[in-house]
């Protein structure tokens, strides 16, 4: 008999279902994920969790991605009963990222939000005890941010110190310099 | 060594030791501030009494010499019961008054 494979709901289906209930909650919808308005995040999440259709009772995982201009907080929600999974993103300001916390909705989110706060600096309002999870309290800055290395006095990061192209060559094949037979 | 004088242990010597223990017990129970301290004094006094009982049963002429030891056993049993109740009292008082110093436990009603 055919094994049930997890269905990944397309962002548009989620957006249309969500838009019907909470107009204005969805900023835009892509094939894989849906982007929510930060303001109506908590309401949208509560709706998605309690909606019999979406039934997102299982928060699979949450993390954050530093997109230089903004910081995306990514949630993967799933329904075990219906065996479907979908992705939700919330953009947050890059300098002082702040997003509503979903800890009151899922216990699983408590530790994961503390990790995102610790490594990316996203402040979650409404989290019962938002402290650093891994690093010690007086650690300067949040390591997973792309601009972390450019702290005053911070070293240059590993690979990025080598020039991407040899001098004077633009694109195309790399031409080795003429080594001149045995020149010192 | 002055063994001539002390060649033997007479009844009086043992009674003196008993009296010494008794007076120390009396002093401790009268002068200590802590309830448990007082109980220690009482226990010492009871021990002293036991020593004298056994001394008499060992030395003094009597139809049933073992009665002294029977009495000593009864004293030990009762002392244990008394210690248990007294300490239970001390703990109960501590629970209400947060202290076991007898100076501060003077109200008849709390």
């Amino acid at each position, binding site marked *: *008999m055919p094994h049930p494979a997890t269905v990944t709901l397309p962002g548009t289906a989620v957006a249309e279902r969500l838009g019907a209930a909470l107009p204005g909650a969805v900023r835009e919808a892509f094939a894989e994920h849906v982007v929510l308005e930060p303001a109506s995040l908590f309401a949208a999440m509560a709706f998605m969790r309690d909606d019999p259709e979406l*039934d997102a009772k299982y928060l699979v995982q949450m993390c954050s991605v530093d997109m230089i201009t903004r910081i995306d907080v990514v949630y993967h929600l799933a329904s*075990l*009963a219906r065996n479907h999974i979908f992705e939700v993103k919330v953009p947050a300001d890059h300098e002082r990222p702040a997003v509503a916390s979903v800890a*009151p909705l899922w*216990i699983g989110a408590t530790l994961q939000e503390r990790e995102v706060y610790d490594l990316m600096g996203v402040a979650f309002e409404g989290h019962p005890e938002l402290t650093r999870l891994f690093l010690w309290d007086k650690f300067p800055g949040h390591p997973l941010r792309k601009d972390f290395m450019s702290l005053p006095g911070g070293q240059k990061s590993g690979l990025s110190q080598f020039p991407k192209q040899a001098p004077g060559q633009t694109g195309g094949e790399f031409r080795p310099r003429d080594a001149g037979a045995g020149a010192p | 060594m002055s063994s001539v004088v002390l060649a033997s242990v007479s009844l009086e010597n043992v009674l003196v030791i008993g009296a010494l223990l008794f007076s120390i017990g009396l002093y401790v129970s009268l002068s200590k501030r802590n309830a448990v301290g007082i109980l220690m004094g009482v226990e010492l006094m009871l021990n002293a009494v036991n020593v004298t009982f056994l001394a008499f049963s060992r030395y003094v002429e009597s139809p049933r010499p073992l009665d002294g030891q029977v009495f000593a056993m009864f004293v030990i049993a009762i002392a244990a019961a008394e210690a248990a109740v007294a300490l239970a009292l001390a703990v109960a008082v501590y629970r209400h008054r947060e202290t076991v110093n007898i100076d501060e436990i003077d109200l008849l009603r709390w």
Partner: protein
Amino acid sequence: MTGALLTIITDNWWDIRDLSNLSGAIRDLVSDAGGPGWLVYVVAGLLGAAGIVTFVGVTAIINIWIERRVVGRMQSRLGPNRPGPVGLLQPLADAIKLMQKEVLQPKLADALVFTAAPIAFTVPGIAVLAVVPWGRNMTLASLDAGIVFIFAMSSLAALAVFIGGYGSNNKYALFGSMRVIAMLVTYEIPIVMSLLGIAMFAGTMNLDGIVRFQEDHWLFLIMLQPLAFVIYFMSSSAELNRTPADLAEAESEIAGGYHVEYSGMKFGLYYAAELINCVTVSAIIATLFLGGWWAYKLDEIVPGWMIYIGKVYAVYFLFIWTRGTLPRFRIDQLLAFAWKWMTPMALVNVLMVAAEVLIWEETGWSAGVLLPIYVVLNNALALALIVAWVRVFAPRFERFPDRPRFYSTIDVPSLPAVAPVQPGTQSQ
């Protein structure tokens, strides 16, 4: 003078089973030499004590090796085999290591109590061996209230443990020592009750007398008193806080128990004291239940004390066996077990024994007839009691409760979303 000395040890050197009562023999020797009366007791006492302390010292060393090898064997691994031919020098290596280790003392611990504790813990353990009969007349102090002496010494251990826990001024240590004292006090009652049965049957509390009773009536007391043996073994394994009752130094819970602050030779003393206490309890069980140095016809051939030490190690193996296999009780389960199971069973045992001894006294039948009946009766009764008690009182535990269900596909019931409960506010 040397002639007199030789009379103590019979002509063939290996057969010292004729060594009559230690102090009696020495009294003849000293009185021949014209010494004052009281000197005899001092010399006899010292000699006996020296003998017992060397036995204890040697046993402590050997036991470390035996225990680690046997437990190793049970865990399908080798156990110490590096130092010495088959790891025999391992205990020596441990002892030397412990001796040269620096003895740390926490700053706030009060010195007097901190140093007194290990000594106070070891002395009662060794003192009990003075009462135990090693051979036909080889008892250092055959007190006529031997069993009460054993209780007295084991009750002293409670105070010593407290001193250790309180002295080292450490939260874990105090926690551990409180647990141990609760256990010791709880388990003293079943111990006293179970040995009461033995004293009643043997008619005397003198350990020599008990062994002679077993010799005269040609049986081991374990046959007459199986229930007492079971109760005594279990409660003494709790008294010695060995698995399954090693609550005190439950490593996985409060690391270390009452001897957590000790290091160097002080810890060595605690470690040795635990082994010595275990040997002492094995010695008591061997004497009271397994007939001490007497073994049917065997003790004519083999010297009595060899049989006795063999029995001590046999019982000691039982303790190692339980230590090797059983997991640990929780403190409340342990105490409930003592109050709800051991003490009532011990009471029933005492009543049984009283009835039987009364019948034996009143009817005046010969022991030869009555004792076999008692043996069968007691064993059957013990078995019935244990099974009935477990059936009635033990919580319902079938061997393999509710096997897990097996699903070939996922099946998740649609459950209501639950409001997450923040910690601390949960079911209080």
